């Protein structure tokens, strides 16, 4: 039995890594200009290729692909953390309104700064998004003390999301014309327009956060059994909960600051990965969810770019199409099991 489990985990990891790599390559190759693998190979080893191809590859597609990969992973990890935190399989940064909160504060900052012609650094965006994420999280936490049903918690999260979105809309409506285009694209969620500088900052931040989450995998496994037992096993539950809130907000903030709100990845990817592995153990799930989220987002971004090219879909449109059915599936299945 132990052996077959080991095999399952190995195969699952192999599938996730292969999937991520495959979609990475497809994302780089496919587009309005198809680029062959040989060209990519030549560019990587430093040989000359056409200037247009080089710019498309190096300045547009590669940073975008990396961003989708890193942010997708971060999103799934944030979802996994929130699901663990609330003991609720349909929790995620989007449904709990955390993304929308981050979006709201970013929009406020953006409009305010741009109105005064101050250039906003990406660090400031991230900080703003983090503040927004923590704000929403605070509301959700307040609600979670009063409502104990998982569906009600999600409903309150969705409400918070609506409030934040309304405020964002308001801000956008009264913003200058030039800002609107910028804000509008971003507030719908998109991986377009990524630069290498963005990728560098986000990968640094997310790598640190990922490391921190991974170090928590043992107490998280105890926390999954419920707080009473976690405490009996010697876990400092309060301390752990604070860390979970901070880390999941950090991850959500990174995503929102760069790509805007992206829906459903945070729920769908961890759930699919759990089913693939047949376990929910944090030590496996933390890296696996990250990979799963990466593959999922790369796949969705590929569709968003290419399905109706040259018109680009917002990333949330695609993730919702694939993610929302997963949520419905979870809810239908939960009903059948009496252990909710």
């Amino acid at each position, binding site marked *: *039995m132990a052996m077959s489990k080991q095999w399952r985990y190995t195969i699952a990891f192999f599938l996730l890594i292969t999937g991520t790599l495959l979609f990475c390559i497809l994302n780089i190759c496919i587009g309005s200009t198809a680029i062959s693998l040989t060209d990519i190979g030549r560019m990587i080893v430093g040989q000359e290729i056409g200037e247009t191809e080089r710019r498309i590859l190096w300045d547009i597609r590669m940073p975008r692909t990396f961003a989708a990969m890193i942010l997708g992973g971060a999103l799934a990890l944030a979802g996994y953390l929130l699901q663990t935190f609330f*003991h609720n*399989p349909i929790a995620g940064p989007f449904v709990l309104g955390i993304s929308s909160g981050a979006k709201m504060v970013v929009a406020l900052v953006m409009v305010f700064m741009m109105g005064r012609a101050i250039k906003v650094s990406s660090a400031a965006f991230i900080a703003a998004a983090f503040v927004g994420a923590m704000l929403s999280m605070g509301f959700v936490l307040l609600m979670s003390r009063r409502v104990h049903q998982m569906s009600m918690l999600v409903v309150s999260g969705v409400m918070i999301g609506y409030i934040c979105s309304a405020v964002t809309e308001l801000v956008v409506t009264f913003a200058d014309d030039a800002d609107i285009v910028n804000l509008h694209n971003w507030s719908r969620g998109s991986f377009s327009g990524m630069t290498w500088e963005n990728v560098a900052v986000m990968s640094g931040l997310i790598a640190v956060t990922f490391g921190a989450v991974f*170090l928590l*995998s*043992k107490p998280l*496994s*105890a926390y*999954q*059994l*419920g707080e*009473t*037992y976690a*405490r*009996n*096993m*010697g*876990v*400092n539950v309060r301390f752990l909960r604070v860390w979970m809130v901070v880390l999941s907000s950090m991850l959500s903030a990174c995503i929102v600051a760069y790509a805007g709100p992206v829906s459903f990845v945070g729920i769908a990817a961890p759930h699919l990965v*759990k089913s693939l592995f*047949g*376990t*929910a153990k944090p*030590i496996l799930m933390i890296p696996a969810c990250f990979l799963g989220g990466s593959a999922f987002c790369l796949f969705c971004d590929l569709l968003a770019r290419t399905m109706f090219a040259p018109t680009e879909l917002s990333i949330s449109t695609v993730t919702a199409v694939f993610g929302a059915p997963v949520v419905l599936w979870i809810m239908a299945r939960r009903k059948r*099991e009496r*252990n909710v």
Partner: protein
Amino acid sequence: MEYYFSAKQMSVGYRKCPLIRNIEIGLKRGEILTLIGPNGAGKTTVLKSIAGQLALIGGVAFLGKENIQHIPDTELAQKMAVVFTDRLRTELLTCEEVVATGRYPYTGHFGILSKQDHAAVREAMEFGHVTEMKDQDFTKISDGQRQRVMLARAICQEPEIIILDEPTSYLDVRYKLEFLSILQKLKREKGLTVIMSLHELELAERVSDQILCIQGEYVDRLGTPAEIFQPSYIGKLFQIECGSYDEKSGSMELEPPEGEAEVFVIAGGGCGRNVYRKLQRQGIPFRTGILYQNDLDYPVAKALAAEVIEAEMFEPVAKALFETAKRQMDRCRRVICCKERFGSLESANRELLLYAGQSGKQVEVSYD
């Protein structure tokens, strides 16, 4: 006296608001302490406070000589295991994996199980008789099975003391007995100290070395089962209003039928209990006799009959008592005789039956 667990002036409650004050406990290694008391009396609060889940509001609890609140978390986790009524939430965990979570305080930073840990898991599952469930999903087994897996998990934690909150509530009679047998085995073989709450008084009486009776705001009594199960004490502790509990026999009965008794039951030696209970179900009040005070029928008769003609045990039935029985019978219309034959020391009851026939009563028989 060297106590393994002791509580001094311990006050427990929620949010700085004391619920039960000044609890004093002294428990030697390998003793079983059971908390009994009515619903909502605060048994769970006491257990949670002892386990460090709730901060003490006053006083101190000691493990050995150490104040429990000063023991580092992991060290305490290696000494104390809990089985609470909070439902364990699991996702995609087999029973074996649930048991293995008991190894948590012993594993390294990433919680990887070593060979010894795996061996401990296997041993704990054997000890708790749950090995055959090891590959089943924990969410898909029954509440009773879950309770046994949780005990195995606690054993796997290799504690010195184990705290259990109503551990037998979901178990059927076979597993209730098996569960408590495992606790006794742990106590004898591993010197485990046990603190638990039980609703089943008869089990508490049998398994406990000490019993703590909690009554709302205070601890009413602490003592051995013999000290606790004194006549009429349980009825008082639980404020029993409908029916009764007999401390000596452990039998409980519903309320006796009300009204003027019209039936006289001749019983003895345990043959009358079923008739008493049947009359109770039908709501027919009755008198019964002549019963010795040590008769099997006696506690049931005391609980249900309007009148019991009782004889002092190991003494012959006095003439005056026999006359009383006759007078009681005169007031009844029907007589039910549960005795098929009378022993040589039951001549009084035989004569009573004859008297019933002579005085023209409607005599029925009811043999088991």
